[in-house]
Every structure is written in structure tokens, then in C-alpha cells.
């Protein structure tokens, strides 16, 4: 692309004829080619500018969408952290429950031992009572 200064220098060398509202320029074909080339190039640059602006606005939308995704994922991470906390509490509660149940088992074992002992004593007492009764009865009947 030609610099404006270079183009202006070329125009000054053309000695333009000015009549009322019209200007007649006599240009060398190379200079005219340069001007046409620039004009057409500016048209393309204008189109490019519009497309770049559209692309820019699309990219801004993409950034916003990605921000939404990131924020939503951050929210999900917080939710997952809460879930993990809840599961930890749940596990703690289950541990406590298991502890209580194990303590209950111990108590029941002691109770079973106690009742076995009592049962043995009851059987022994029953046998002893029967023997004593039989002896007393025998003695009584003997008399």
C-alpha cells in the first residue's frame, strides 16, 4: 500500500485543472493504477474491518459463555465439597453407631454370662432342693 504522502506528491505534480465544481486530473497511468489499487484495497479493508468487528463480538460472546461455564463449574465444586463434608459426617455417625452397637454386644455378652451363671445356680439349687427334700421326706417317712 502506498503512503499518503507519496500519493499527494504525485497529485501535486499533475497540475489539476479546476472548473467550478469539477476537477480534471491528468495522471500517469502508473499513478492512476496506484490510486485505483489503493481505492480497491480500502474497500477490502473496510470489509475486513466489518468482519473483524463481527468476529470480535462473537469472541466476546465466547468469553462470556466460558465465564459462565467456569462459574458454574466453581459452583459444582462447592456442591461437591458440601457433599463430601456430608458424607464425612455420615461416616462419623456410622462409626459412632458401630461403637454403640459394639458396646451393646459387650453388654449382652456380659448379660448372657450372668444369666448362664444364674441358670447354673438355679439348676444346682433345684437339684440340691430336690435331694434335701428327698432326704427329709425319707427321714420323715422312716420315722
Amino acid at each position, binding site marked *: 500500500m502506498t503512503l499518503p504522502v507519496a500519493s499527494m506528491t504525485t497529485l501535486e505534480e499533475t497540475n489539476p485543472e479546476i472548473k467550478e465544481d469539477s476537477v480534471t486530473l491528468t495522471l500517469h497511468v502508473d499513478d492512476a*493504477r496506484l490510486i485505483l489499487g489503493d481505492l480497491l484495497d480500502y474497500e477490502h479493508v473496510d470489509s475486513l474491518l466489518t468482519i473483524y468487528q463481527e468476529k470480535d463480538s*462473537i469472541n466476546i460472546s465466547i468469553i462470556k459463555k466460558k465465564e459462565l*461455564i467456569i462459574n458454574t463449574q466453581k459452583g459444582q465444586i462447592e*456442591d461437591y465439597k458440601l457433599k463430601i463434608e456430608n458424607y464425612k459426617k455420615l461416616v462419623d455417625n456410622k462409626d459412632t453407631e458401630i461403637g454403640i452397637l459394639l458396646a451393646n454386644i459387650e453388654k449382652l455378652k456380659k448379660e448372657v454370662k450372668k444369666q448362664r451363671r444364674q441358670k447354673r445356680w438355679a439348676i444346682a439349687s433345684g437339684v440340691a432342693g430336690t435331694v434335701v*427334700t428327698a432326704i427329709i421326706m425319707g427321714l420323715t417317712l422312716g420315722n
Partner: protein
Amino acid sequence: MKKKLDFKTIIIIVLLLGVIGFIIFWPEPEVDYNQDKIDELKEQNEDLLAKNDSLSNVISEKDTIIVMAEREVEELQEEVEIKDSLIQNINNRRDETRDHVNSLDGNDITRGINDYIRRNKSGN
């Protein structure tokens, strides 16, 4: 006629009464199972599970939002690709135009400038 109770009968009656007394009045074994505490813990766990279920629902709703946003991003990226190819086309056309202008003679150049002016006027 009154019959006198002999010693043997008295002992049998006493022993029978003793057995019946034992059966009736023998205390039930008292074991503290901490059932209240267990019930409380179970209730807490049910609450925690319910909270986690609602959190799972929230997470799944957010998943839907993310999936939709990602789909939209993909569509937008396709649009960007279209714009990039347009930019590429225009840049190619710029090069072609430069080459084309270099090959024009005086008449074609004048026609080109006139076309440009006409296009700009109609554009305005």
C-alpha cells in the same frame, strides 16, 4: 373335718411358692442399648443423605447449563471459523486485485475508478 398338714407337705408348699415367686418376681435384665442415640444418629444420616440428594440434583442442573453453554461455544467457534475463512478470502482477493490492477491499461483504470465512485455514491 380338719386335716393337719404334715411337715413334708409344708416343705413342698414352701418350695412351690419359692419357685412361683422366683418366676414372677425375677427382675428382667436391664441393658441400656442407647437406642435413643442410635435413632438420633440414623435420623441425622437420613437428613444428610437427603441433603446430598438435593445437591446431586443441583449439580445435575448445573451440568445441563454447562452442556448447553459448551454447545453454544462450539456454534460460536464455528462462526469464528467462517469469519476467519472470509478474512482469508478477502486477503486473497486483495492480492488478486493488486495483481489485476497492475495489469490494467488506462481505459480499464478509468473504468475502475468510475465504478468505484459509482459504488460509493450508491452506497451512501
